[in-house]
């Protein structure tokens, strides 16, 4: 009886549907990535009960279909479900590919795995939650979370990152995929980056990441914005902060809108302001800061293709300690001997000369497309505009005219190809074209510090990653860069002869003036860089990393063209247009030990840099301001080596102890002298209590112990006080004493609603208001460093 009804039902339905419903749809399901077939994929015709499974060859079949367009849903375990429209007309064949290997493509983090850029280099990731604590500080401050990374400062608002003893032009900074070009050759030029723009930061010691450049002799800093998610959502965060030292306040807001179609948009704005900072015994007059930033990006990010348009703006006005404005060597001597700044006024928010005003615009557009069975191709164009004004203490109507006015514009084109169809043998290659123009405005009335120049860069690289076994990865890379610099430089005739350029470079003079020559030096550099490394997982707990890298760095504009008085340092600095490129050979070895309770990471490196360029005093000139030391850039061979250690031990599930220590040594091989500005040994110990039941409350006490740098070059000199005919010792070399600072930090997170969270962080830096000076602070001759500082930060996530 049932059977008759069934037969009738089938007959009726088959008559009920279209008269010609005998089309057959066959097809094959494959993996987009590497074109392998996918077995056991589920294929269903939406709106019907027709469902089938793909066989071993990925084939599937539907019979008795009508001539119409069907909506087919294909799904597979660990793949993103795909819906396609198929027009069926007679026998139809359809190839459908699914995105397999989701966890390899870094689009969605399935497990909490570290998404590092390199596999065998010494790379440390700083995540969002740590970066948020530095909202009121600078990039250089945040990077010091990594042992081995210190900073060279001019006061505490100008913070330049230093990786294993190397800084400035030896550090490459990538800001959302754009190589930062902001006159980083200057010792007083901090990176112009808003820390609040960063979602996560990777610090790579050495030049392991060849895709970005071949001249990162010191290291690479990769700043990435927070990831976009392909779901319909609107979320954001606002951070409000205040601090007692400097009476500073800061606010930043980020808003994100994402769509499941892949579209996304983000806007972010920051404002930071502080007045004069305070050392334990006095105010540091004229150390205020006024900083404004804005960034916006939008685009579409799908698996197969995507694009992004990004723009960021940063405007900084930075005051430099008033007492550091000196005219002569005797001013420095008086400053050193007085023990405290010779200019101390009451607190003020005013920022007067000497000060810096920097504006940085960055714009980028990039597009990528993935090709089946091949990989990903991406192209990018980016543009940067950096204007730097430095105001000196001047008289008359020149008071408001900067002494330095430099505008740097850079255009870059990049194209990269990622061949990742074979996950065990990945290859990446790309090319780069860059044009840069520097304009030094003569309206300053001061001879140009850096001349006008045009610079062209062409680069090509290839990197590869081989996964030989589950526990053995090899990677390597090769890169070639061609750099062409065409400058127009004025030399005083007296300097031209003193440098003996009249003998070697007479042919580059293009015009003669009463006291100066206009010359046109042109440089060409061919740079080869390479890297090779291996990563071995000895067992579940132990991992070894070994890496060799070769980097080449052409001399920067300051090393080539410096030619005159560096006011703030009261010394004459001379570059040399004869310089060769620096070539660094770096070996590194890391060992990490990971168990549930204990994590130990030790990183050792040896860096041999040939043609190492640095500044050292070599003579005097007796000017109308008294004797000035002349510092000359030298090219020598140097070697640096060191060890960085991180230990994290969970004493209990609520108490954690950690230690970060770093020892770096650097020597001029030719003279056997220590290199200048090497970071002294430092060790940071921290005890932290966390209780997830108390609104994620945590409190930590940190001891920062910096030893005295006992290996330093003795660049002290004696000058004659012409009046008394006595010799006066100018001691600019002796590093300050060791110091130990205790800091406290505590925070808790409250759920205001199911979508809104409030995090409150309270910190006390330098709890005991300890007086100290830091060897790596160029203003250490004039004043102590910061005294006690109470900080409060409120963060709202919504």
């Amino acid at each position, binding site marked *: 009886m049932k059977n008759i009804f069934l037969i009738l039902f089938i007959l009726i339905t088959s008559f009920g549907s279209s008269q010609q419903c005998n089309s057959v749809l066959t097809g094959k399901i494959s993996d987009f990535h590497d074109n392998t077939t996918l077995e056991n994929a589920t294929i269903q015709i939406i709106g019907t009960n027709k469902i089938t499974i793909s066989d071993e060859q990925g084939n599937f079949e539907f019979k008795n279909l009508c001539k119409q367009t069907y909506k087919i849903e294909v799904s597979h375990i660990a793949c993103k479900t795909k819906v396609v429209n198929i027009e069926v007309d007679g026998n139809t064949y359809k190839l459908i590919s699914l995105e397999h290997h989701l966890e390899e493509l870094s689009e969605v983090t399935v497990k909490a795995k570290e998404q590092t850029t390199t596999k065998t280099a010494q790379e440390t990731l700083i995540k969002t939650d740590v970066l948020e604590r530095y909202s009121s500080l600078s990039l250089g401050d945040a990077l010091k979370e990594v042992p081995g990374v210190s900073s060279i400062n001019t006061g505490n608002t100008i913070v330049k990152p230093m990786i294993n003893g190397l800084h400035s032009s030896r550090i490459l900074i990538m800001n959302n995929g754009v190589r930062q070009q902001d006159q980083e050759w200057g010792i007083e030029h901090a990176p112009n980056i808003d820390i609040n723009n960063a979602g996560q930061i990777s610090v790579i010691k050495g030049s392991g990441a060849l895709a970005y450049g071949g001249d990162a002799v010191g290291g690479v800093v990769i700043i990435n914005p927070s990831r976009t998610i392909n779901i319909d959502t609107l979320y954001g965060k606002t951070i409000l902060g205040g601090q007692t030292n400097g009476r500073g306040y800061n606010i930043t807001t980020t808003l994100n809108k994402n769509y499941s179609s892949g579209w996304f948009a983000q806007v972010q704005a920051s404002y930071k302001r502080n007045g004069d900072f305070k050392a334990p015994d006095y105010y540091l007059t004229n150390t205020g800061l006024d900083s404004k930033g804005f960034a916006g990006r939008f685009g579409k990010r799908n698996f197969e293709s995507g694009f992004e348009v990004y723009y960021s703006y940063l405007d900084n006005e930075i005051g430099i300690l008033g007492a550091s404005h000196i*005219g002569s060597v005797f001013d420095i001597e008086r400053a050193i001997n007085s023990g405290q700044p*010779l200019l101390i006024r009451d607190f003020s928010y005013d920022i007067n000369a000497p000060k810096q005003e920097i504006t940085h615009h960055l714009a980028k557009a990039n597009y990528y497309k993935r090709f089946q069975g091949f990989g990903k191709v991406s192209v990018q*164009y980016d543009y940067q505009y950096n204007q730097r004004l430095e105001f000196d203490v001047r008289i008359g109507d020149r008071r408001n005219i900067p002494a330095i006015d430099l505008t740097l514009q850079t255009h870059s*084109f990049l194209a990269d190809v990622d061949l990742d169809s074979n996950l065990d043998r990945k290859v990446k290659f790309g090319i780069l074209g860059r044009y840069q*123009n520097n304009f030094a405005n*003569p309206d300053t009335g*001061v001879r140009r510090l850096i001349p006008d120049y045009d610079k062209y860069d062409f680069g090509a690289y290839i990197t590869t990653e081989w996964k030989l076994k589950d526990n053995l990865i090899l990677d390597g890379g090769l890169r070639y860069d061609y750099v062409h610099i065409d400058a127009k430089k004025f030399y005083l005739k007296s300097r031209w002869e003193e440098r003996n350029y009249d003998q070697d470079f007479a042919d580059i003079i293009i015009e003669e003036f009463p006291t100066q020559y206009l010359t046109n030096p042109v440089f060409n550099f061919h740079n080869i860089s390479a890297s090779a490394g291996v990563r071995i997982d000895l067992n579940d707990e132990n991992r070894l990393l070994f890496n060799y890298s070769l980097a080449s760095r052409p001399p920067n504009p300051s090393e080539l063209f410096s030619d005159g*008085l560096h006011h703030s340092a009261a010394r004459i600095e001379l570059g040399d247009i004869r310089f060769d490129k620096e070539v660094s050979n770096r070996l590194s070895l890391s060992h990490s030990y990971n168990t549930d309770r204990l994590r130990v990471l030790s990183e050792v490196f040896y860096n041999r840099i040939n043609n190492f360029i640095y500044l050292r005093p070599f003579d005097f000139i007796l000017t109308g301001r008294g004797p000035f030391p002349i510092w000359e850039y030298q090219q020598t061979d140097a070697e640096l080596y060191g060890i960085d250690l991180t230990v994290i031990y969970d004493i209990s599930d609520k108490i954690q102890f950690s230690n970060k220590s770093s020892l770096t040594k650097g020597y001029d091989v030719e003279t056997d002298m220590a290199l200048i500005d090497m970071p002294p040994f430092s060790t940071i110990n921290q005890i932290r209590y966390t209780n997830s039941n108390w609104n994620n409350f945590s409190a930590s006490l940190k001891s920062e112990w910096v030893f005295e740098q006992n290996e330093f070059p003795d660049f002290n000199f004696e000058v004659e006080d012409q009046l008394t005919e006595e010799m006066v010792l100018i001691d600019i070399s002796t590093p300050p004493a060791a110091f130990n600072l205790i800091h406290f930090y505590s925070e808790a997170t409250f759920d205001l609603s199911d979508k809104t969270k409030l995090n409150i962080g309270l910190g006390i830096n330098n709890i005991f208001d300890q007086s100290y000076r830091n060897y790596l602070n160029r203003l250490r001759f004039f004043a102590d460093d910061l005294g006690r500082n109470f900080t409060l930060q409120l963060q709202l996530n919504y």
Partner: protein
Amino acid sequence: MKINYLNLNAMKTTKFLFKTMLCLALVSSFTSCSDDDDPAPVNEEELITNLTLTFTNTTNPGDVVLMSSVAPDGLEDGLSTETIIGSFTPGASYALTIGLLNESESPAEDVLNGDIIPEADEHFFVYAVNGLNLTMTRDASDIDGPDGSKLGVNTTWIAGASSFGNLQIRLIHEPSTVDDSDEFGSATGGSEDFNITFSGVVIN
């Protein structure tokens, strides 16, 4: 491979975007490239190339001691040459006239009257002698300097017994504190615009 209808549109859009970016980039690089003119030389305005100290005997105008320091590239970072013509007569009183010029400009710029004196409240001259029997006073008619002191431009010098030694003149810009109670003057802080010592000054 059958290309989905949607993909084709995306390809067209991206091709257009690409061309636009290329054009924009080329245009902007051409505009910066078009700056083929040579840069203009900068002749520094704040240079002091010539310092002259003219000591004139108040009772015998013919008795003059002239000290000059000349630095063609500027006193700041250029080599300077000091010369002394004449010697002081013991017991005589001399009026000092200071000259500060920037001779890299044509006509020469008078830095003293053009820049220093108009900003007298931010400058201070400091004098010193070593081995010489010279004393000085800042005239009542001297220009007012910072904090109720006298700038040190109009001064009178008295030569004592025969001696020889060094005479120093310094110009301090924006000193933190000044003190002219000993007439020669002292200052803390600020920066030295110049610090010149004449050696071999003679009283005989």
